[in-house]
């Protein structure tokens, strides 16, 4: 029996995802080490969201096995895994304050009379402080900016100190300051808790200097490795089967010529409702 310290947060073995006779990816083996941050890139429709959902037990793979924190995935949902969804603005009249959104990470799964337990308030206060959200802790969430809401979602996902963190486009439509704040929270968590992180993103730049490895999915295949080994014109051209260029400009990295979506017309199939 391995100790908690050395168990890989996530092991994916021989995984495949097919839609009808179309192969999104196959023969995927991936081990996320403690404290490792892996970015998942690829055009829309390449099965990135489905991969996260399969890890959570909410979708099934076409083949292969997934082991999360030493246990095979069996049930739908996993409280030992932190999950950060994509930013979507909450309705203005949502009857919740900032602290209530974070609180859901602590007790949102619990049935029974809604009576707070001892110590929960202190825990929520600490999470709010980490999210630099103490100043607006008691304001209605519907009145906060998208970036502020997203920092609260990260705090909610970190409520149970998860050893595996899954983030699905966590930075989309955030301003630069909030992007940095969200990246800072994720990065700090994986370092202090030796947590593995799988982060789906379409823009690598906000996380480029934090990323250990990149998993690039496209055209039914994938490429896995360190950023400088994957984000190369020859590697990506081979993956896409087209001429793709990688440009460095002003400290940013731009991939030019990569199709935005898979060629078939399934643009939104990995965006589950």
């Amino acid at each position, binding site marked *: 029996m391995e100790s908690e310290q050395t168990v890989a947060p996530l092991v994916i073995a021989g995984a495949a995802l097919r839609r009808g006779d179309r192969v999104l990816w196959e023969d995927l083996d991936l081990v996320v080490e403690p404290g490792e941050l892996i970015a998942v890139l690829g055009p829309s429709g390449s099965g990135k969201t489905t991969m996260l959902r399969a890890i*959570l037990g*909410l979708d099934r793979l076409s083949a292969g096995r997934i082991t999360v924190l030493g246990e095979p995935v069996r*049930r*739908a*949902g*996993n*409280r030992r*895994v932190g*999950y950060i*969804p994509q930013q979507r603005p*909450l309705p203005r*009249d*949502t*009857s*919740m*304050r900032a602290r*209530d*959104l974070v609180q*859901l*990470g602590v*007790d*949102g*799964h*619990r*049935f*029974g*009379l*809604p009576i707070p337990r001892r110590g929960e308030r202190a825990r929520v206060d600490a999470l709010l402080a980490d999210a630099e959200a103490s100043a607006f802790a008691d304001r*209605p*969430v*519907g009145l906060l900016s998208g970036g502020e809401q997203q920092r609260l*979602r990260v705090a*909610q*996902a970190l409520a149970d100190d998860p050893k595996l963190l*899954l983030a699905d486009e966590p930075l989309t439509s955030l301003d630069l300051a909030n992007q940095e704040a969200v990246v800072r929270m994720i990065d700090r968590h994986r370092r202090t808790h030796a947590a593995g992180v799988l982060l789906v993103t379409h823009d690598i730049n906000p996380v480029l200097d934090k990323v250990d490895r990149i998993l690039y999915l496209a055209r039914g295949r994938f490429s896995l490795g360190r950023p400088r080994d994957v984000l190369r014109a020859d590697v990506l051209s081979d993956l896409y089967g087209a001429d793709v260029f990688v440009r460095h400009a002003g400290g940013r990295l731009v991939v030019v010529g990569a199709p935005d979506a898979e060629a078939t017309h399934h643009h939104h199939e990995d965006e*589950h*409702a």
Partner: protein
Amino acid sequence: MNWSDIWNAMFGGAADYGEILALVQNSVWAGAVLGLVGGLIGVFVMQRDMAFAVHGISELSFAGAAAALLVGVDAVTGSIVGSLIAAAVIGLLGARARERNSIIGVLMPFGLGLGILFLSLYQGRSANRFSLLTGQIVTVQNAQLGWLIVISVIVLIGLLLMWRPLRFDSLDPQAAAARGVPVRWISLAFMLLLGLVVAVAVHIIGALLVLALVVTPAAAAMRVSAGPVAVPLLAAAFGFVSAVGGILLAVMGELPVSPYITTISFVIYLVCRGIGARRDRVTRSAA
């Protein structure tokens, strides 16, 4: 009809108010419990964007009650059966808002049509006919009133027991599912509780007016507060005041209960909107 007739219709019974109250005591109790529960569940109806579903369920509940009258079964049982069938169909088939709305749009006229058919075939007291559509709590018999109260209490307990997962699912179903909340079961259970509340409300306020006790109080509460405790408590209080106030005012005269309930509930909403708009202005000028 002149002014004194109207006065009589509204306040003719004022002289015997004490005796009348003793007679309708149980109706007041039923109204009180439904007001509280309707306000509470309304908060989730608003968050889950299901006002239209409430209306759809109530029409099928009406059809169920009408069918029960026709075959000589208890109308409360009939409305519960109709409600639960509608709630289950909407809950199972309409996971997404768009699908759900089209299913409701298809079910609703069918239910209403069925109900009208059953009522036309029904030979019994004609007073019962209208009361299912527009409500007349004071004509409901005591044994049935007892049932209405019991059902409301069941819904109240059910809501409290699943309060936190239901709130999580209403706000962010994806994050809730990721955390292991059984979102499908939560949604279905919520629909069934909603079906029960609607079935009760049909007898108290009528199938056409259910929204006044299940949506308006919560909508009003959300205008003036965002607190997770304050909103449900205010919504329950508004529902209680509307239902009980409406019954107490109505029995003073000969007019039906429903217009009183809908008017009180609407006035509360208007006042809350005013307060909310005023506070928004203050907040903005302070910012």
